[in-house]
C-alpha cells in the first residue's frame, strides 16, 4: 500500500537572481512499512525532498500525494493540520520543547489533537517504555543526554500514530552507541508496528540498516535500491 507518491516533482529556488534547481524531476513512492534512507552529497536535495514530502514546503512543479491528500491543493492552514495528522518529524537537533518534561513532549501533539487523558497517558507511557526511557518521564530535555533526547523525539513523532516518520539526519549529533540504540528502536518500531520511516542521512550506520537506499544527486534520483531484495 502506497503511503507517499511523488510524481515528477521539481523545486526551484530563486536566490539572488540565480535559479537553483534543488529537486529536478523526482518520481518516487513509499510503501507502508518502508525503512528507507535518502542519501547523497551535501546540496543534493535530501532535506528539500523531505520537506516537500512532509508538507513543510510546496513543490514548484509535479505532484505529491500523501495518504490520499494532494499536498499542492492544501491551503497553508490545512497543511499544518495535515502535518499534525499524518506526519511524524524527527530533527537532527532533537528540537524538544525545553520547558516540558519527556512525557509532556511525547504527549504534546496528542494534546493538540485532544486525546482523552487516560488514552494519552497510556500511549505516552507505552512509547517511553518502547524507547527505553520508562524511568525518565519527568526529566526535562536539559536533564537528558543527546541520545535520550532523540529517543524522546522519536516517541513524540510516533505518538499521534502518523502515516510515516520523516527523520532528517537523526543520528548526526549522536555517538555510536546512542545512534545504534536509536536505530535499534526505530527498526523494532518499523517491524512491530509497520511504521514507515524515511531518513535523510550521511551516516553509514543508518544506510547499513536501511532496507531501501535512494541516492540523490543534483536533485535527481540516481539510484533506488531495495537492499532486502538485494539479499
Amino acid at each position, binding site marked *: 500500500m502506497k503511503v507517499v507518491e511523488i510524481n515528477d516533482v521539481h523545486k526551484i529556488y530563486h536566490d539572488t537572481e540565480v535559479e537553483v534547481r534543488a529537486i529536478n524531476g523526482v518520481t518516487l513512492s513509499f510503501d507502508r512499512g518502508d525503512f528507507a534512507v535518502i542519501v547523497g552529497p551535501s546540496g543534493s536535495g535530501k532535506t528539500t525532498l523531505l520537506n516537500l514530502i512532509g508538507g*513543510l514546503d510546496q513543490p514548484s512543479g509535479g505532484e505529491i500525494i500523501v495518504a490520499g491528500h494532494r499536498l499542492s491543493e492544501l491551503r497553508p*492552514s490545512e497543511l499544518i*493540520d495535515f502535518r499534525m495528522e499524518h506526519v511524524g518529524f524527527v530533527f537532527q537537533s532533537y*528540537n524538544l*520543547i*525545553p520547558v516540558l518534561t519527556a512525557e509532556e513532549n511525547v504527549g504534546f501533539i496528542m494534546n493538540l489533537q485532544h486525546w482523552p487523558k487516560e488514552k494519552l497517558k497510556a500511549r505516552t507511557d507505552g512509547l517511553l517504555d518502547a524507547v527505553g526511557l520508562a524511568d525518565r518521564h519527568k526529566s526535562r530535555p536539559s536533564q537528558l543526554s543527546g541520545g535520550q533526547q532523540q529517543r524522546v523525539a522519536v516517541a513524540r513523532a510516533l505518538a499521534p500514530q502518523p502515516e510515516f516518520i520523516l527523520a532528517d539526519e537523526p543520528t548526526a549529533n549522536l555517538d555510536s552507541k546512542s545512534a545504534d540504540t536509536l536505530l535499534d528502536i526505530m527498526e523494532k518500531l518499523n517491524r512491530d508496528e509497520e511504521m514507515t520511516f524515511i531518513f535523510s542521512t550521511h551516516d553509514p550506520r543508518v544506510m547499513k540498516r536501511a532496507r531501501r537506499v535512494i541516492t540523490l544527486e543534483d536533485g535527481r534520483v540516481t539510484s533506488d535500491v531495495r537492499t532486502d531484495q538485494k539479499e
Partner: protein
Amino acid sequence: MLISLAWKNVWRNRTRSLTVIAAVTVGVFAGVFAMAAINSSIVQRIDSAVNEELSHIQINNRQFRSSSDIRNFISEPDSVISVLQRTSGVADFTGRIIVRGIASTSTGSAGVEISGIDAEKERTMFTLSQRLIPGTGSYFGSDTKLNSAFIGEKLARELYIIRYILTPEVLESLAGKDVPASVIEKLRPLEGVRFTTEKKFSDACSGLLSAKENRKYGLKLREAAWSYREGSRIILSFLDINGDQTGAAFRICGIYRTNNDYFEAMSLFVPDNQLRTLTGMQEGQYHRFIVKLENSNLTDKVTPVIRESLPELEVLNWKEIQVDLAMIADYVNQIYGIFMALILAALAFGIVNTMLMSVLERTRELGMLSAIGMNHRRIFMMIMLESIFLSIVGGFAGMAVSGVVIGITGHTGINLVKYSEGLEAMGYSAHLYPTIGADFFLMLTVLIVLTGILSSIYPARKALQLNPVEALRGE
C-alpha cells in the same frame, strides 16, 4: 495545555521576566497608590461637604441665595415639612434661620453667615459637633443664660480669640513630646509672652532656634502654645426682620476645626431660638431646610422628586451647589481609567520588548511547533498568554502591594501638613487616608489583561511570519 506551556515559557528566562514583572508591579503600585491618595482627598472632601457644610439637599426661598435678605424666608414651611416627610429616601431634615452679619471682638472683626440651628437635631444629623477642638467648649452643652455661638478656628484666629503662649506648663510638657531640653532652654525668653497670630509666634521661635530645629519642632511648638480662653465672648451684629440694626454678645461654646478654611471663617452657629428672638422672626419661619438622605447615591434620584413637589422654592443638591466638587466626583472614575491606561501603555512597551526577544530567541522552536502541527491560532494564543501572564503577575503583585500600603496608610494617614494652608483653603484635608473602591481594582484587572493582549500582537505576528523550513534551518 497551551496555558501550562505559556506559563512555563514565561519562566524560561527568569531574570528577564522578573525584571518586566517588577516594572509592571512598580508602575501599577504607583498608579493605584496615587489614585487612592487622590480618591481619599475627594472622598474626604465630599464627606465634609455633605456631613459638615451643605448636607445632601438644601431648600431655600428662590431669592434668598442671591440677596441673603432676612425677609426672604420660606413662607410655607409646613408644606415643605409635609413633602419631606413623605419623600422616600429622606433620612432627616431640619430648618435653619440664616442671617449675614459681623462678628467682632475688641481686637478684630469679620463678616460671617450666622445660622440659627436646632443644635440637638443637627448633632444627630451632621458631624460638625464632632469637629469640636478639645478644651474649647462643649457644642451648646453648657447651661448658660447667655447667648452661645459655635465658631470655626479660622474665624477665631481672625478675631484673635486664639493666642499662642508658652506658659511654664507648656514648656514643661514639650519635654514629653520629644523636644530636647536644649531647644526648650532656647525658648525660655518667650515664656509668658502672648502672640496674637501663629505667624508672630513662629517668627519669634525662628529668631531663637536654628532653621533645622525650627523645621523639626515648629509644628509641635505651635500645637503646644495654641491657647484659647474658654467662654470668650464675641459680638454679633446683623439686621432684624424690620431691617433695623441689632446684635448681641455671644459666649463661645466651642470652636470647630474642619478642612475648609473658607467654611471655618464664614460659618457661625447659634441656637435658633436665640437668633429668632434677636431677629424678630416668628416660630416656624426658616430661611433654609437642609435634608439628609439615607445615602449619597440617592441624591440625583430624590432631588427632582422634591423639586417637583415644591416648584415655588429653590431645591439644590450638594452637586449643584459645589459644581466643581460634583464634577470631580463624577469624572473621577474616568480620570482613574485614563491615568492607569497611560501607565499601562508605558509598561506595554516593556512587555512588547520582552516578548519580542523571547520570540526571536525561539525561532527554531517556533518553526518546529509549526512543523509538527501547531497552527497559527495556537501559536498566537501561546504568545498572547505569555504576554498576559507577564502583565497579570506584575499587575496583581502591584495591586497586592498597593492594597497593603493603602491598608496601612489608610489607617495611619499621610501627613501633608506642609501644604495644609493651600489644601485647606480649597477645602481639602492635609491628612489623607488613601482609599479606593473594589470597582477600581476590577477595572484595573481588565486594563491589565488588555495590556497583555495588546502587547502580544506585534511579537505574535512576528512569530506567525516565521517560515518553518527557514526557522528549522537555523537560529
